[in-house]
């Protein structure tokens, strides 16, 4: 990736290396939670928040604790603990402060821990060697890219519920065929936006 300007990292996370359609991260929630727009919105909001927070905290943890103590080999275990703790924290805060949002998110909130998009963002930050600002920007933009695709997918699936198709294609295969079309469109960002 060229020259690592913050804007090109932002566009990279948002479109070019879109987490769902290009990198295949977080597909379980992509096919599981996109049956209607409302739950897709709630899930995306929680993921954006956790992803941005996880990128920030794990960068600080890796740079200021693991590297000075020469314990880089513990990166995976410590990142997953950070993410699990963050999700718990978000859950407490949302339950106390915004009970209505907590009820509408339901089971999806604790499930973010095992969403590979969050851990993927943290690991990609580490392997690309991003500095603090770049990590935060990449985490946030990847979350926003996730949101865009989730909302598109949920909208299309909601409207195609009553389409008359063979019963063996209904459900998951149909979702994958829609994803094929969306993915073909996103592949073109490789050429549209040069970085």
């Amino acid at each position, binding site marked *: 990736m060229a020259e690592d300007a913050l804007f090109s990292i932002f566009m990279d996370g948002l479109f070019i290396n879109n987490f769902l359609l*290009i990198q295949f991260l977080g597909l379980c929630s992509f096919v599981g939670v996109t049956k209607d727009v409302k739950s897709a919105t709630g899930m995306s909001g929680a993921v954006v928040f956790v992803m941005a927070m996880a990128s920030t905290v794990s960068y600080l943890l890796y740079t200021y604790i693991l590297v000075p103590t020469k314990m880089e*080999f513990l990166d995976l*275990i410590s990142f997953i603990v950070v993410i699990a703790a963050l999700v718990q924290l978000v859950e407490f805060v949302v339950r106390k402060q915004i009970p209505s949002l907590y009820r509408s998110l339901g089971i999806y909130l604790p499930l973010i821990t095992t969403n590979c998009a969050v851990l*993927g963002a943290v*690991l990609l930050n580490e*392997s690309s060697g991003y500095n603090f600002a770049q990590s935060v920007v990449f985490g946030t933009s990847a979350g926003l890219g996730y949101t865009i695709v989730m909302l598109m997918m949920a909208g299309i699936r909601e409207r195609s519920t009553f389409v008359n198709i063979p019963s*063996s294609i209904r459900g998951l*295969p149909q979702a994958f*065929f829609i994803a094929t079309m969306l993915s*073909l469109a996103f592949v073109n960002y490789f050429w549209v936006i040069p970085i």
Partner: protein
Amino acid sequence: MDPLSEFIRGITRDNPTFGLVLGLCPTLAVTTSVENAIGMAAGTAFVLVCSNMLVSSLRKQIPSTVRLPIFIIIIATFVSIVDMIMEAYSPSMYAALGVFIPLIVVNCIIIGRAEAYANKNNVFYSMIDGFGTSTGFLLVLMLIGGIRELLGTGQIVVFGYSLINLSLSYPITTMILPAGAFVTIGALMAIVNYQKAKKLERGE
């Protein structure tokens, strides 16, 4: 409950991709070639068998309120081992699979089997279940990888040996792109659903 039928169950009824629909991310992301599919399945199999055995041997000691964090720590330990071994002994495969080796931690197949099977059964059966599920995973990955590699490049090359060479003049390169993964798994899933529906009709 005999060992062989438990093993077969992991390939057919509880197949991780088509039966349980778990672990979709690696299934789609690393299947650009048969070789990558085999590498990914081998790493997952090691973690799955080891974590199933350890979880099952500790199942009476683990308090049920904190079992999920404990499972995740156990799995993360084995994934770190796989990560280091692959980086040391097969760096080209490690580079091709990239971030998906550490991401085995959050592969829902492994934590799913720990929760649904290893937590309730003894060590031997948990090991058999681990082997069965990983064999099912390997077969699915090789099938998807084979279809994508054959249509996308016109040939299948595994560890330097050319298995099939169609020498197409215009291979469908879209199949190697992300879209190819979605259309392949969509079509395979539709076929599986069709077969299931026919079985139901015959009353089996």
